[in-house]
C-alpha cells in the first residue's frame, strides 16, 4: 500500500494582526510564510511545494502564479485547491500526498486576507452573480448568514436544538479568548448574553457569528527526511479526509454536513476514533457550524449535539472535548473569512504545549476540522488528525 510514510507539520504561524489597513494581502502572505518557516527552523530556499487557495480579492489573478511570483518561489509542486475556508485543512492532506509521492519535501501553505479593512459586514454581502447556481440562489438575497440561519432552523426542527445550546458554543469560545491577548473579543460572554444579542438572521444572533478580521497564517509540512534533520519538535499527521456536500439536485439536508465522510476517512487512516481525541479545533463560522460538525465527526450521536455542548463540555482545560482554545473564529480571528488555517495552527500549538497556559490541554491527539463554503448550499469538509511525536 502506497502512502504510509510519516509526514509532519514542522512550522505553524498565525499573524498577530486583526486589522491591517496599511498592508497588501500579498504582503501578509509573505509575512506568514516567513513566520512559519522561522518556526520550522527552515529557510525560504528549502521550500519546494506551495499550497494556497483562491482569494476573492485576486479573483482573476491565477493564484499559484501571482503568489509564487510575489513570494519568489519556484516550487516543483503547487496546489491551489479552493474549498473556501476548509481549503487549508485540505492543503495539509494534499501536501502529505505530494510528499509521499516524492514530489516535494517542504510544503508551504499560506492564507491571508483583509475583509475587515475592505469594509465587509458580518455575513451580509450580496455579491454579483458569477456561477450557474447564483441565478437560482443569490437572486433571492441568499447571504452566508441567512443560509446558515436556515441550517440552524432545520436542525432545531429535527432535533429540538435550542438557541441556548448554540450559545453554549460561543460562551465556551469566549471563555478561552479571555486568555488570548491577540483575540478580537476577549470579554467572556454568557449564554444569556448571546441569546440577547441582536438577531441577524433568525434563529442566529450576532454573537452566533464569527468575527471579521484581517490577517493570515501559514504552515510548513515536511517529509520524514527533513524532519529528522530539524532540532524542532514536530507534529505528525496521523490521518486526513475530505469531502464535498452540496444541494444534491434538490435533496439537500441542512441538518448534516460532509464531516461524517471527511471525519471517518481521517479516523480510519489514523486508526483512531473520536474517543481518542484530546483536543479539537472545529470550524466556527457560526455556532451551528460547530454543532453539526461535532455530531457528524462522531463526538456524539446525530441530533444530540445540543445536549452534548451543555455543561462545559467544550471548555478547556477540564471539559470532555476542549475546543478552539484560541477563541476560534467566533472570538479571536477569522482571517480572509477562511478559518481552516487557524484551526490547524491552534491544534499544533496544543500538541506542542505552546498555547495559553490557562487553556493548555495535555493532548496527545488533536483533530482539526474545516467547513468551507456554505452548508446552506455547498461546502467542503476537511479533517486532519494530528499527534505528538512522543505520544
Amino acid at each position: 500500500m502506497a502512502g504510509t510514510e510519516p509526514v509532519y507539520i514542522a512550522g505553524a504561524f498565525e499573524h498577530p494582526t486583526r486589522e491591517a489597513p496599511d498592508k497588501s494581502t500579498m504582503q501578509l502572505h509573505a509575512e506568514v510564510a516567513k513566520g512559519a518557516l522561522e518556526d520550522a527552523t527552515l529557510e525560504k530556499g528549502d521550500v519546494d511545494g506551495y499550497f494556497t487557495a483562491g482569494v476573492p480579492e485576486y479573483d482573476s489573478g491565477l493564484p499559484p502564479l501571482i503568489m509564487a511570483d510575489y513570494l519568489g518561489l519556484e516550487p516543483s509542486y503547487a496546489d491551489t485547491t479552493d474549498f473556501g475556508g476548509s481549503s487549508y485543512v485540505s492543503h495539509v492532506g494534499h501536501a502529505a500526498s505530494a510528499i509521499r509521492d516524492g514530489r516535494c519535501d517542504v510544503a508551504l501553505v499560506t492564507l491571508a486576507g483583509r475583509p475587515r479593512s475592505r469594509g465587509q459586514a458580518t455575513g451580509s454581502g450580496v455579491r454579483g452573480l458569477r456561477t450557474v447556481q447564483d441565478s437560482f440562489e443569490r437572486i433571492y438575497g441568499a447571504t452566508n448568514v441567512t443560509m446558515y440561519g436556515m441550517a440552524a432552523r432545520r436542525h432545531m426542527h429535527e432535533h429540538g436544538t435550542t438557541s441556548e445550546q448554540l450559545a453554549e458554543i460561543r460562551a465556551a469560545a469566549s471563555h478561552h479568548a479571555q486568555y488570548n491577548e491577540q483575540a478580537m473579543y476577549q470579554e467572556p460572554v454568557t449564554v444569556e448574553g448571546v441569546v440577547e444579542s441582536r438577531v441577524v438572521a433568525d434563529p442566529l444572533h450576532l454573537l452566533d457569528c464569527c468575527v471579521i478580521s484581517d490577517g493570515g497564517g501559514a504552515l510548513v509540512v515536511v517529509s520524514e527526511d527533513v524532519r529528522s534533520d530539524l532540532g524542532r519538535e514536530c507534529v505528525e499527521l496521523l490521518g486526513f479526509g475530505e469531502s464535498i456536500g452540496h444541494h444534491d439536485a434538490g435533496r439537500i439536508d441542512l441538518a448534516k454536513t460532509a464531516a461524517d465522510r471527511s471525519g471517518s476517512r481521517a479516523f480510519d487512516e489514523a486508526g483512531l476514533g473520536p474517543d481518542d481525541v484530546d483536543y479539537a479545533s472545529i470550524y466556527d463560522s457560526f455556532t451551528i457550524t460547530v454543532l453539526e460538525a461535532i455530531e457528524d465527526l462522531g463526538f456524539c450521536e446525530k441530533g444530540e449535539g445540543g445536549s452534548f455542548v451543555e455543561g462545559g463540555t467544550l471548555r478547556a482545560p477540564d471539559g470532555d472535548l476542549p475546543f478552539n482554545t484560541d477563541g476560534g473564529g467566533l472570538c479571536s480571528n477569522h482571517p480572509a473569512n477562511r478559518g481552516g488555517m487557524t484551526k490547524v495552527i491552534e491544534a499544533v500549538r496544543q500538541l506542542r504545549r505552546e498555547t495559553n497556559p490557562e487553556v493548555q490541554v495535555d493532548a496527545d491527539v488533536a483533530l482539526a476540522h474545516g467547513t468551507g463554503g456554505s452548508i446552506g448550499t455547498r461546502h467542503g469538509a476537511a479533517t486532519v488528525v494530528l499527534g505528538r511525536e512522543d505520544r
Partner: protein
Amino acid sequence: MSWDPRPVPDVTPETERYWTAAAQGELLVRECQECGFVYHYPRSLCPDCFSEDVEWRESSGRGEVYSYSTARTMSGWPEDDLPLVLAYVELEEGPRLMTNVDADPSAVEIGTRVAVEFRDVDDSEIAVPVFVPEDG
C-alpha cells in the same frame, strides 16, 4: 413592483426555458427519462446518471417550507423588500429549491404550505418564481 433592482438571473441556453416558462406562469422541473430522477436547478445532463434524455415537466407549483431564515437588514437590497424571508421550499415533485416566501415572517414556519407566484422582471421575456402561503 418589478424584481429589479434585485439581482436578475443570468439566462443561459441551458436555463432559458425555465425562466421563460416562469413568464408564462409555469414552474418547470427537470425529469430524467432514464432513471426517473426529478431535479432542480435545471441541467442538460441528469446529475444522477448523466443521461442526456431529460425532459421539462411542469410542477404543481405547490409544496411546503423545508427551512427558512429572515434577514432584517441587508446591504444592497431594496429597503421596502425587508424583512426578507429566504427559504427552501420542498416541491410536491420532490426537489427542494431556494426561493423567497413573500409573506410576513410570522406567517412562515417549517411545514407551511406554499404556492408559487411569479414576479415580473424589466425583461418581459422572463420572470422569477417566489412562493406565498396557501391560506393567506
